[in-house]
């Protein structure tokens, strides 16, 4: 079977517009490009001159699937710029909103974006034709995540309640407590998902990744923490830019990130699971043991399992956060306008998201820097393909193409975020 070029002009079941090109000549892989042709929207540009309190609402619009991640990273970076530490109650509520985004985003990915690749279907809708109750319960779990985000933040896509300094208004305690039965059901469903994910037939493929994720000793990091690299150990959250740089690759609309020494690194659920496994809640760890999970988990396709376990963690933490939710006093702190700069990272469903802002003395943004997770993974995705492609080219063309596409989907790339958005102008090499 002559090995031919694999060309997927438009990747399906990923967020945003991207393509895959693997150039093959005489059976040899000559060229690999993950083409990002998502048009640019210049967020870092038009954030300049905006008032600090508008930043969470504007940056949310970078990504419709993980707006809370953008709101949380931008809010924490701006609070650092003002030298303000949020109250415990405000921080707890932020984690609740964030974990419910993880639930919605992970369940979407497991059952509707990557799941079909593993069950041999074109889409979850097609899967629903065969196993309606699987899809119906997945939709219910996703709905719980969405509804909880709406209860805390006003709506699930681009919530409106979070602000720099805390919250515009404390969500109603009874309304949140009413979610507990659903969350108990969701926890069971997530545990079931872990067992189901463990049984799936993943392509046999492993990579020696440098894992990077936020880390805390006292919890499975989501909102804050120090950066932990499996190669370089702990890195101060504010030294992110010293350690990781973005270079602009010709064929891609997104900037490719790599470690300071030029090597590529991986962020996201797989990285988090490997680095922060010990901080998982007991019940999540027990679920991992039951499926005989061994770390380090180095198969990118098995990111599904990492997401399933993180969904269990998210449900456990949501239940705990709601039970301890007792709002009193003002929902937001008064901020004195002082010039300053601050940076912060948080763990978006797809990986570490870094923001830095410089504010002038009337609270207007002078400079904004945003490094999304998918941008950090793009270089790593192409590196994986270089390792994968030679092996799969033996397979029939359609199967080879599908395995490569499946690898990109396993990353759950969020291309709208990654690109800060440029148009692709391809020059013939």
């Amino acid at each position, binding site marked *: 079977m002559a090995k031919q070029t694999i060309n997927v002009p438009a990747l399906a079941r990923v967020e945003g*517009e991207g393509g895959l090109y693997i150039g093959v000549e005489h059976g040899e892989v000559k060229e690999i490009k993950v083409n990002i042709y998502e*048009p*640019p929207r210049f967020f870092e540009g*038009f954030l300049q001159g905006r008032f600090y309190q508008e930043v969470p609402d504007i940056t949310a619009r970078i990504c419709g699937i993980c707006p809370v991640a953008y709101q949380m990273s931008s809010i924490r970076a701006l609070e650092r710029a003002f030298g303000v530490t949020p109250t415990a109650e405000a921080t707890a509520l932020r984690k609740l909103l964030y974990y419910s985004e993880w639930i919605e985003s992970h369940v979407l990915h497991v059952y509707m974006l990557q799941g079909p690749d593993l069950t041999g279907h074109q889409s979850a*809708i097609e899967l629903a034709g065969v196993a309606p109750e699987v899809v119906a319960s997945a*939709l219910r779990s996703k709905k719980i995540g969405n509804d909880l985000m709406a209860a805390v933040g006003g709506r699930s*896509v*681009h919530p409106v309640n979070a602000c720099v300094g805390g919250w*515009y208004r404390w969500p109603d305690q009874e309304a949140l407590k009413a979610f507990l039965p659903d969350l108990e059901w969701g926890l069971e469903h997530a545990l079931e998902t872990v067992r189901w994910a463990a049984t799936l037939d993943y392509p046999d493929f492993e990579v020696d990744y440098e894992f990077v994720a936020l880390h805390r000793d006292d919890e499975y990091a989501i909102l804050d923490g120090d950066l932990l690299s499996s190669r370089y150990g702990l890195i101060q959250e504010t030294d992110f830019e010293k350690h990781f740089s973005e270079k602009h690759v010709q064929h891609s609309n997104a900037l490719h990130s790599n470690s300071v020494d030029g090597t590529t690194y991986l962020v996201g659920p797989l990285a988090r699971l490997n680095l922060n496994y010990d901080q998982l809640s007991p019940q999540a760890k027990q679920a991992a043991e039951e499926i005989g999970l061994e770390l380090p988990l180095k198969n990118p396709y098995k990111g599904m399992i990492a997401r399933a376990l993180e969904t269990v963690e998210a449900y456990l933490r949501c239940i705990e956060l709601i039970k301890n939710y007792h709002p009193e006093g003002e929902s937001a702190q008064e901020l004195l306008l002082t010039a300053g700069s601050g940076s912060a990272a948080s763990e978006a469903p797809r990986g570490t998201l870094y923001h830095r802002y410089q504010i002038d003395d009337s609270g207007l943004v002078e400079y904004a820097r945003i490094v999304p997770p998918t941008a950090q993974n793009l270089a790593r995705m192409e590196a994986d393909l270089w390792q994968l492609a030679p092996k799969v080219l033996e397979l029939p063309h359609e199967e080879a193409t599908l395995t490569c596409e499946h690898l990109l989907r396993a990353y759950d790339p*969020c291309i709208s975020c990654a690109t800060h958005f440029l148009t692709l102008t391809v020059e013939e090499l």
Partner: protein
Amino acid sequence: MPGVKKPTIAVYKFSSCDGCQLNILNLEDELLDLVGVVEIAYFLEATRAMLPGPYDVGIVEGSVTTPEEIERIKDIRSNVGTLIALGTCATAGGVQALRNFADVEKYTDLVYPHPEFIETLEKSHAISEHVHVDLELWGCPISKTQLLEGLTAVLQDRRPNLPQSSLCQECKLKGLPCVMVAYGMPCLGPITKAGCGAICPDNGRGCYGCFGPFINAELEAFVPVLLDKQRYPGEAVHMLRMISGNAPLFVEAAQMILEQEDN
């Protein structure tokens, strides 16, 4: 057209954040019934299976910001029966239309080390600036119920009844205190269309107009009211030039304020 054959639906993505498309997948309670009455023929984000056009309904999310997209939207227009502009990016250019009020060259060098790779339009355009749009669903993101109403109306071959009142009606139906009256906060509610459920006033903050202009917006009467509630210089223009900043009525309102400030 509730004929025997299920109408075919195609979903296209232009320059956007994907939040409106996601709201199609967020129709958790209705999704399985939806695929029972319509054929999802092309929906890149949800399915790898792509049926060939032409399609009965084309749903376009996102704004036109590149030369290539101008060609693509014209091609889509000729390939679909009913074209639905989904979300405020598609109906008014979205938040990325903030570039329309600034010099886009300045942005490109700022953000990208190799700006020459960038080929983008000076402005972010609404879909209706290039092709005829049959139905506009405003909102950032759209309201799921309006999307269902839009699709159901196509299935029943009738004009969809979408909320037309100002946001203030929704505020009052929920029994909410007006943030302008009770807290002295600026709110775009009186010139913004209802549809979101007044979630900003419900959270004690002013509306920033993501559902686009109210059809009877009275700008001359509203601008002084908004300016009177402004908490920092330029807040009124910032609120107007936000998600629906490129909608004609909001552009005009911002213009009125800037001209007032000049003289």
